[in-house]
């Protein structure tokens, strides 16, 4: 029976901390199953519709009747105090024990149960063995259920506390949670509590269209997207001969708008798309903690440290004054000072450069390692002669205040951090004379007249800041020139965004500084395409910020390794993002984070909504709709690659997990070659798209 338990636990998607926000595919554990089958199964677990109705809007639901004791109220406060990262002023006294034992020593108070049920719980707990493994034996023995009943029982119990379960799954990530994991302990606790209080919520029955119909409507709405792809395929190829500037952006859909605005200014500007960490698997010893500056699917290979350790800020001062008995005396005379803060709102703190010295740290690496890193970047980007005098890596970040989800607006490829550090490192490495020397035998002859720069695209403000402190004097004029261009492009991009999202109304500069703002930017809303092709294919098209654009030139990738990289990393990350948006818009009651105005930060880990102490995952209502009009329509990711079918097929055969995504229809995969028609990879192989 225990394998059943661990199998159920494996199906739980992970949830990252707020400051390390990662867009997670909520159907992660189910990608072995076809899309339709998995969703049908989920609907029976959640007892709520997951697929939207005929108009693409979630089916309105009546809430179950209010109950005093739910899984969340019984366990939420305890879990919050147990995993608290320093938010409670007095730390929980059972923090140093393993989860299950901590829970036992917090009984019966931590459940908030009173009277008969509290006594019953005490009685049950007394008979329990102390080892988690034995507890499971005991529970399995006691509940006379067969395998499928057990599975369903556990799934339904975990669906009552999905947020905390997901967070515990993340704590074990990337390992599978075993029977002695924290998630397993939580599940055991739920099973025990279920003997005292009926945990399963009773959702009122409601009339809704059959699953089959809703699936039909869903796929029908997606069909229209193929027309856009067909248009792309028909684009004539135009090569930009000698660019003045060549810049690599993150593939993020927000870059598309800015890139188009910039390229419109001059035909001699060429931009590329690449995963925002630019292939540098680094982590950085920051002032607060180690920052992993790369997608969560990859482990960091290089740890960079500043020459002097960064100073930690004294952040306890304010809470020292206002908490506890001293707070009673303090607010009397000090409370008036709050009026100043009230009048100003929350201000963004001017931080000192958080990545000061990262360039030096990168240059201090051994030369062979540096050469290998840069060779990888150049190959995968397809960067080679003719070189532009300025080559720029542009990572991205965002600006907002009073926003617990701020990290979610930063680069998703960098674990909720900005891509700035990676861009700066990449530029520093490419400028390193040792590296250029080492690259020459490998086939990259970068002349001394080429300068690499790092930059940061602020996606809220649509501003690009170049890091020019190390740039030699000789490039000063051309840098000033490019900066002026970027300014104009920014203004254009901001105007573009207001056309795409007219409800934003106020200027980005106002929104980014407003402490009451719930939509500082629209993030990745609208994402639906992933296009891996040379930029010339999409250059003339307005893709409305809906596409992840990855540069890929099949003729430069003879061994197919770049294609392999694209399909296994950026496509998977993009599909995670896409499916998160899909789930949060199709079934906000289940997979959405609720309403931002009800959010409260719990333990420095996540947010909970209103009185429900469960953690919230997914996207908030404000991130996907405005006055009940959605600005993201749920649809699966449409991946278009300019490569031969045989090359793609080779990658699919090598990587079963990507093949599963395609064959089980979690993404739609299309391919084309110059002058050839568009084909789609289906379960039955490649088929022409009519």
């Amino acid at each position, binding site marked *: 029976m225990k394998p059943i338990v661990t199998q159920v636990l494996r199906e739980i998607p992970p949830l990252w901390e707020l400051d390390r926000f990662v867009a997670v595919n909520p159907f992660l554990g189910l990608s072995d199953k076809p899309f339709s089958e998995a969703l049908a199964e989920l609907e029976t677990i959640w007892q709520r519709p997951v697929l939207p109705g005929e108009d693409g809007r979630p089916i309105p639901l009546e809430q179950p009747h209010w109950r005093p004791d739910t899984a969340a109220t019984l366990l939420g406060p305890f879990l919050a105090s147990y995993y608290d990262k320093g938010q409670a*002023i007095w730390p929980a006294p059972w923090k140093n024990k393993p989860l299950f034992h901590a829970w036992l020593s917090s009984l019966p108070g931590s459940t908030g149960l009173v009277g008969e049920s509290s006594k019953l719980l005490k009685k049950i707990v007394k008979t329990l063995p102390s080892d988690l493994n034995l507890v499971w034996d005991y529970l399995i023995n006691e509940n006379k259920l067969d395998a499928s009943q057990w599975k369903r029982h556990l799934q339904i119990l975990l669906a009552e506390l999905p947020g905390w379960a997901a967070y515990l799954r993340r704590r074990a990530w990337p390992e599978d949670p075993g029977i002695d994991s924290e998630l397993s302990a939580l599940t055991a606790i739920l099973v025990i509590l279920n003997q005292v209080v009926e945990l399963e919520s009773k959702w009122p029955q409601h009339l809704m269209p059959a699953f089959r119909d809703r699936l039909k409507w869903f796929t029908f709405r997606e069909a229209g997207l193929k027309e856009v792809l067909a248009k792309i395929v028909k684009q004539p190829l135009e090569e930009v001969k000698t660019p003045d500037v060549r810049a690599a952006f993150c593939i993020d859909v927000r870059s598309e708008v800015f890139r188009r605005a910039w390229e419109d200014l001059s035909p001699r500007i060429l931009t590329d798309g690449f995963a925002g960490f630019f292939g540098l698997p680094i982590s950085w010893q920051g002032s607060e903690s180690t920052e992993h500056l790369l997608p969560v699917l990859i482990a960091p290979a290089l740890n960079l440290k500043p020459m002097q350790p960064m100073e930690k800020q004294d*952040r306890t001062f304010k809470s020292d004054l206002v908490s506890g008995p001293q707070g009673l005396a303090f607010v009397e005379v000090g409370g008036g000072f*709050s009026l100043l803060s009230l009048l100003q709102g929350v201000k963004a703190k001017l931080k000192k450069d958080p990545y000061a010295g990262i360039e030096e740290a990168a240059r201090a690496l051994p030369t062979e390692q540096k050469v290998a890193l840069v060779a990888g970047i150049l190959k995968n980007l397809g960067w080679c002669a003719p070189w532009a005098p300025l080559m720029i890596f542009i990572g991205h970040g965002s600006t907002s205040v009073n926003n617990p989800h701020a990290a979610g607006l930063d680069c998703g490829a960098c674990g909720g951090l900005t891509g700035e550090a990676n861009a700066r490192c990449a530029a520093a490495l490419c400028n390193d004379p040792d590296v250029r020397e080492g690259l020459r035998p490998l086939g990259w002859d970068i002349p001394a007249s080429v300068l690499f720069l790092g930059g940061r695209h602020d996606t809220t403000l649509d501003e690009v800041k170049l890091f020019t402190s190390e740039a030699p004097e000789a490039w000063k004029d051309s840098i000033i020139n490019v900066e002026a261009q970027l300014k104009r492009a920014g203004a254009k991009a901001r105007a573009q965004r207001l056309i795409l999202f007219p409800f934003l109304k106020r200027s980005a500069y106002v929104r980014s500084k407003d402490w009451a703002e719930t939509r500082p930017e629209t993030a990745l809303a609208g994402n639906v395409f992933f296009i891996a092709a040379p930029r010339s294919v999409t250059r003339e098209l307005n893709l409305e910020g809906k596409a992840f654009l990855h540069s890929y030139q099949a003729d430069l990738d003879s061994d197919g390794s770049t294609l392999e990289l694209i399909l296994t990393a950026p496509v998977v990350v993009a599909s995670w993002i896409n499916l998160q948006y899909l789930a949060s818009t199709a079934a906000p009651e289940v997979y959405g984070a609720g309403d931002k105005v009800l959010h409260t930060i719990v333990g420095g880990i996540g947010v909970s909504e209103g009185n429900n102490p469960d953690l919230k995952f997914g996207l908030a209502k404000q991130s996907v709709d405005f006055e009940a009009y959605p600005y993201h329509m749920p649809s699966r990711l449409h991946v278009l690659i300019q490569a031969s079918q045989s090359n793609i097929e080779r990658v699919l055969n090598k990587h079963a997990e990507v093949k599963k995504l395609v064959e089980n229809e979690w993404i739609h995969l299309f391919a084309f070659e110059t002058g050839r028609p568009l084909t789609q990879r289906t379960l039955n192989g490649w088929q022409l798209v009519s």
Partner: protein
Amino acid sequence: MKRRLVDLSVCLVPIPTIICILFWVFGQTFFLQLNQKYWDLLFIDALSLTFLIFIAILGTIIYSFAFRNLKGDLHRTRFLFFLGSTLWVVQGLAVCGNFALFIVFWVLTSFGLHQLLQHFKHRPGAVIVAKEKFLISRLGDFALIAAGVLIYLHFHTWDFAEWILIFAQDPDVNVFPIAALLVIGALTKSAQVPFHAWLPRTLEAPTAVSALMHAGIINAGGYLLIRTYSLISHSESAMVLLIGCGVVSSVWGILAMQMQADIKRRLAWSTIGQIGFMMIEIGAGLPGLALLHLIGHGLYKANSFLSSGQLLAYTSLRRIPSLANSIAGLCLWSLLSLLGIVAAAWFSPSHVLMAYLISALLLPLVHISVLQTSLRAMLKRLFVTLFVAVSSFIIGIYASFWFGLHESLPTEGLRVAVLTGAIVTFLLLSLMAVFQPLCQSWRWYQWLYAYGLHGFGFGRWPEALADRFFSKKERHI
């Protein structure tokens, strides 16, 4: 067009206050032809003006926050309407000079808040809390209406200004029933134990509602007591009742607050504690200090709620002190408070109890200063400790005088005993804050902590009552 009007609506919030200030400044010259009867409905003095301006500023800020915060919400206009009208009603409450009118505003505030709490009508949690609050508010209304009737029977007038004159003539009138009813009314409005359970559960309403409630409406209870201070201070027993409930709420709130890992819940429990302390100040005969506490706390709490989305502020790890640290902190504190109390006794002997209270409260802050690793951080905290101690003592002496409130410091009898008990309780609470890191493994501490997570579990009766009371009625409909 409709949107434009909504955009401008924030300017409407402080209008009652502006009118009152104009009346106050130009009343003598321009409005004299107005009948004296209407004049008496307003009671503009230093106290009401201070409260009025406080509400106007706070209300405008909260309204403008909600205005932007709720963009994209389908029912924003309705929400803003109720928020604005509740703010008007609270301003009316502050300035009215007639107790009957006061009760009307009091009830209207509660109805306005009821609508705001139910903004998310589809959320069962929001509805049940609103109902719970509704029940408790009606209890408070009954107490206040009963007090109003008794007042009329006693004094034959509802005019605040006239009571003072009556007391000046006849100071020995027995006012205990009236005072006790007023105190009960205030306790229900201010979410004091045992009427507190709904407050930490009101997180089902937008952040702006929490800010308004914790900074503005909860304070109405305190304002009522300060406004009618000339009456309730004549009843020693009512004052003792007030101090008793204040101490229990204060300790309860502060203890529960320390254990919450959830920011808004922590702020909610902190309010219960802070308002409890304000009740003690009123009971101790320092209404002016209580008014300043009310304003200081209101501003601080509104700011804390509105800025509760700052993530980084909540992930700081605290240093774990050793026994030696704690003893050193204790020694430094003893020295400082000895000096302070001697100085206080020399400066104003009648306020020496207050000096004891302040020093009991500041023990944890001195202890935290000793813990700091850098000299700068240590001095920063010690300086604030000194600033708080000295200024709150001085404000405590003069505040009532500034606001034209009469002070009634206890000199002997039950009230002194109860106050001494309060000081000892706070000292124990402070000692617990200091030694808490050392008793992590003690069974009783774990037990206390576990119950503290749910606010010591006393919150179920109104919830269950509301569930039973209302769900039956709904079934009939």
